[in-house]
Every structure is written in structure tokens, then in C-alpha cells.
């Protein structure tokens, strides 16, 4: 598919900082891809996310070099409110992004901003409510639902605007594991059913690795690695060096690979890893006495 995001030699330095937050980033993201961005805190992930949505440079003071193009147009060239129709962002703090008094109002807010009509709103409302499993929550005010539910509402609210690109900036960092999983479940459905381009910034790799088509490593404002997911994780040493902790199972199989026990594709999930391990053990384990056969 055609590229939807093109970043050329992009650097951004916040006016209060001595060092640039992003330095010479070159990146092309194709439409429909599911991309994961990882990196230590302070590596520029959020800055990158904000740059794609136009929040940088419109809301923040700093110096920009290079270009960030969405659909062939520079981010600054879009009139106010137009870029948001194309690019949606879900932030990390569920509290701070609930902008209305009830869940339904929240879901509808973005659509009203777009000037959609009541029937259109009703239709989309039904759709996102079903996708994010919010049916029971529509009438509830923000203080009556959990952080995880709020994040699903935020996701649905942005999705209701049907942006072509959805960016999620550490959407699950403040959530417990169950809520985290439910947010990712919505992302799984999104990936399967829609053709949005989805960019997820995360620390927690266990859920992300199995979903992403491509992964990006940012460190100290620089793009160190960008590749298809399996190939990405095979560069485990680079990841470890840059403070990334891959999921335990993946790391384990990687160690097996390093020590020569295994030489095939790196598994991305526990199930895949279990299959790998079973196969390796079966291959290497000394055969037991005949009576152990069932």
C-alpha cells in the first residue's frame, strides 16, 4: 500500500531543552500497517507521536527541521482541525483525556466537532460501542468507570472519528493487566476489521509483539532500528543494550538461539515459544526407556 506518513530528516528541539528530542528521523509508514514504537523514557516517542498529529509544532514551542508529511502534505499546511480528521491520538492518562460528562457524550464529542449529522453519529456510535464493548457504560460519568474502561472509551472516541491513522501513546501504562489485555483486544479487532494505520507506543511488549507488523526502536532521539517484527526482535542484543526488555519467553528462546540449540524463527507469543521449546526438547532430549512410551 502507499505510504501515508513520510518523515524526512526531521529534528525537533523543545525551546527549553539543550538537546533535540528527535534528531534526523527518516521514516516511511505505509497505510494499513500496524507499527510498534519502543524505546526508553526520554527517547522521543511521545514527541514523535505529537509531531504526527500536529500538536507539535502548533502547541509546543521549539525548533523544527526537516519535514513531517501526512498524505503528502506537511503537517503545518493543514488548517486547524483538518489534520485531526486524518490522525487520531489516544494518550496515556485515562483521566486527562475524558472530556465530557458521560461515556456517550465522550464518544459523540469528536463526531460533533466534525460536524456530522445525528443519524451519522448514531450509526458510528453503535459501531464503536460494539467494537470496544462499551454497551453497559454509555450512561455512566467518568468517575464511575475504571481506568481501563476510560482508555477503551478514549480509543472508541477517537475511532468514531474514523481517522486514517490512529496513534496510541502508551495507552496501557496506567492500567492493570486485565484492562491492558482488553484494550489490546480492541486493537486486535481493529487490525482485523478495519484498514486504519495503527501506531502503538508501548513499554509493555508482551501484547504488542504479536500484533505489530513492523517495529521501531527510538533511543536518545534517534531511530536506531526499524524492521519487520520478527527480524526486529532478532536483533535482541541491540534491544537489550538500549534498555528494552523483551518478553521473558522471547528472551529465553533467543538465549537458546545464542547457544546454538535453536536456529529458526523467533516466536513472538508464549504459545509460539511453547511450540518451539517442545520441538527443541523433543529433538535434543535423550530418548527415555522404551517403557515410557504410551
Amino acid at each position, binding site marked *: 500500500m502507499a505510504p501515508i506518513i513520510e518523515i524526512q530528516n526531521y529534528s525537533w528541539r523543545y525551546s527549553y531543552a539543550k538537546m533535540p528530542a528527535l534528531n534526523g528521523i527518516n521514516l516511511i509508514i505505509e497505510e494499513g500497517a500496524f507499527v510498534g514504537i519502543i524505546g*526508553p523514557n526520554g527517547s522521543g516517542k511521545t514527541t514523535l507521536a505529537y509531531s504526527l498529529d500536529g500538536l507539535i509544532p502548533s502547541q509546543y514551542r521549539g525548533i523544527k527541521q526537516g519535514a513531517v508529511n501526512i498524505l503528502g502534505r506537511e503537517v503545518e499546511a493543514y488548517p486547524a482541525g483538518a489534520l485531526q480528521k486524518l490522525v487520531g491520538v489516544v494518550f496515556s492518562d485515562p483521566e486527562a483525556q475524558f472530556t465530557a460528562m458521560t461515556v456517550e457524550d465522550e464518544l459523540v464529542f469528536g463526531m460533533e466537532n466534525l460536524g456530522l449529522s445525528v443519524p451519522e453519529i448514531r450509526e458510528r456510535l453503535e459501531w464503536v460501542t460494539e467494537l470496544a464493548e462499551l454497551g453497559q457504560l454509555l450512561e455512566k460519568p467518568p468517575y464511575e468507570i475504571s481506568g481501563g474502561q476510560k482508555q477503551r472509551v478514549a480509543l472508541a472516541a477517537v475511532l468514531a472519528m474514523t481517522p486514517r491513522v490512529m496513534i496510541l501513546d502508551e495507552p496501557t501504562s496506567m492500567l492493570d493487566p486485565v484492562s491492558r489485555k482488553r484494550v489490546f483486544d480492541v486493537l486486535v479487532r481493529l487490525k482485523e476489521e478495519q484498514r486504519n494505520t495503527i501506531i502503538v507506543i508501548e513499554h509493555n511488549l508482551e501484547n504488542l509483539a504479536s500484533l505489530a507488523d513492523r517495529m521501531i526502536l527510538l533511543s536518545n532521539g534517534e531511530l536506531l532500528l526499524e524492521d519487520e517484527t520478527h527480524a526486529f526482535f532478532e536483533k535482541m542484543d541491540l534491544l537489550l543494550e538500549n534498555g528494552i526488555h523483551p518478553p521473558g519467553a*522471547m528472551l*529465553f528462546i533467543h538465549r537458546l538461539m545464542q547457544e546454538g540449540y535453536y536456529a529458526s524463527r523467533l516466536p513472538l507469543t508464549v504459545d509460539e515459544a511453547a511450540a518451539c521449546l517442545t520441538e527443541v526438547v523433543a529433538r535434543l532430549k535423550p530418548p527415555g526407556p522404551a517403557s515410557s512410551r504410551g
Partner: protein
Amino acid sequence: MNAERPFIRVVNVSYRYPDGTEALSGINLDIYQGEFMAFVGQNGSGKTTLSKCLNGLFNPTSGDVIVDGLNSKTTSISQMVRRVGYVFQNPDHQLFNSNCWDEIAYGPRNIELPEPEVKTRVAEAARVVGLPETYFGEHPFFLPKGMRQRVAIASILALQPKVIIVDEPTTGQDARQSLEIMDFLADLNQAQGHTVIIITHDMPIVARYARRVVAMGSGRILADGPTAEVFSQPETLAETFIEPPHITQLAQRCRSLGFDPGTLTVEDMLRQFKELVA
């Protein structure tokens, strides 16, 4: 673990919020000196409420919390915080002094220690958390988040409590920062003898650092035991909606191959593997 009496005894504690919701029911727990524990459970399971009962912030609606022989209901807050320290998740909720030194001194001054004593404690606490002297005069608001958290921890350490409870030490931190803070807590525990309790969702961290896990759900304790044991009980874990760390899940999935379902680290798994194929 000591065979002597527990430092904290929680006896049949229940807690009911003013609007009627029951946050804790029938909690019984003994906490000994020198433990490194994790409270885990879904949001709303009661782990935060229980922790706040341990340092006297909340008084149980029924039952008793006995800390170092003192009943929390009849002991003043200043006596309680000398024994049990609580570090809140968001340092912004507690930092308000105009410089870090005063911030750390705040606790000792509150419990009315003489100024020379306060000075010693502040210097000691700052040293332990690794706060450089250059930061002493800085305003906490402008520090990076990691530093703010250290100042918050130092301000509790300055009270020199025997037990320190840390709420979500690794949320929002990247891998390296998480390890730094956890290593620091582990050092507090091993080298300085503090009892450390972490409230967290981060299962790999729990697996790596905590020796005892208390899993809660719906205001009750659903599991309480050594980490490996708790993680290898799938039924209990399902109730608490907790998933064990990735590596433990792998070990459990490959149980039939001979792996220990309580495996907590990659190193351990590797060791078992080598023994299996040797």
C-alpha cells in the same frame, strides 16, 4: 523470615467506605521484619486500601491492625509513620516544598525531631536514594520524574520506618528505570533490613524481586505465599485476574516436558533446560 512475632499483624480487618462499599473483608495477615512482599490484584481488589490500613491512614471499620505492638486505632499518626512509611504513586501528590532538602526534612520536622537530628536524617536519606547534593536546592517541580520519585522516597526514608510500602514503583518507568528503582528497594531490604512492600501490576518485577506475594480480589486475600508458589496456581490466579510473568507462563505451558511451573526467571528456565537435555 524471622520466627519471632510479626512486626505487623492484621487481625480480621474489614473496611467499609462511607458510601457503603466494602473494600476489605476478613483480612488476616502477618508481616515479619525483613520481608520483601508484593500486593497484587486488580484495581479495586483492596490492595491499596489494605496498605493504607497498615500505616494508619485508614482505620479499619472492624478488626485490628497491630504494628510493632501498637494498635493503629489508638496510636497517633506520628507514631505510626515512624514505623510504616507509604510512598504514593504520583510524587506530585506530595511534593510542595520549594527545595528538595526541605522536602526531605518535612517528615522528620513533622514528628518534631531536633534540628541536628533532622539534618543527619536528610543527608542519610538523600545518600541512600542516590540524590546528588546539587539537587538539594532545586525545586522538586522541575526535576525529571525519576528524580521526583526518589525525592518522594527519600522524604519517607527520612522518617526511618521499618516498613516501607511503595505504590506502583515501576508504572510509567522504562525497563532501565524500573530496575534501578527495584534494585534500590532490594538493597534497602537486604542491606538495611527494611521490610519492603510493593503494590504493583508488573509481574516480571514481582517475580524477580518479591519473595512473598499476597494476591487480592474483591476485598479478600485469595493467595498468600512464596512467589513461585502463588504464580503456579492457575485457579487462584484466574480469580485474581493476574497473569504470571511471561517466562512463568512458558514454563507452565511446558510443564509436561518437565519444567517447574513456578519458574520465575529466564536464567532459571535456561538452567532447567540444560539439565533436561543433558
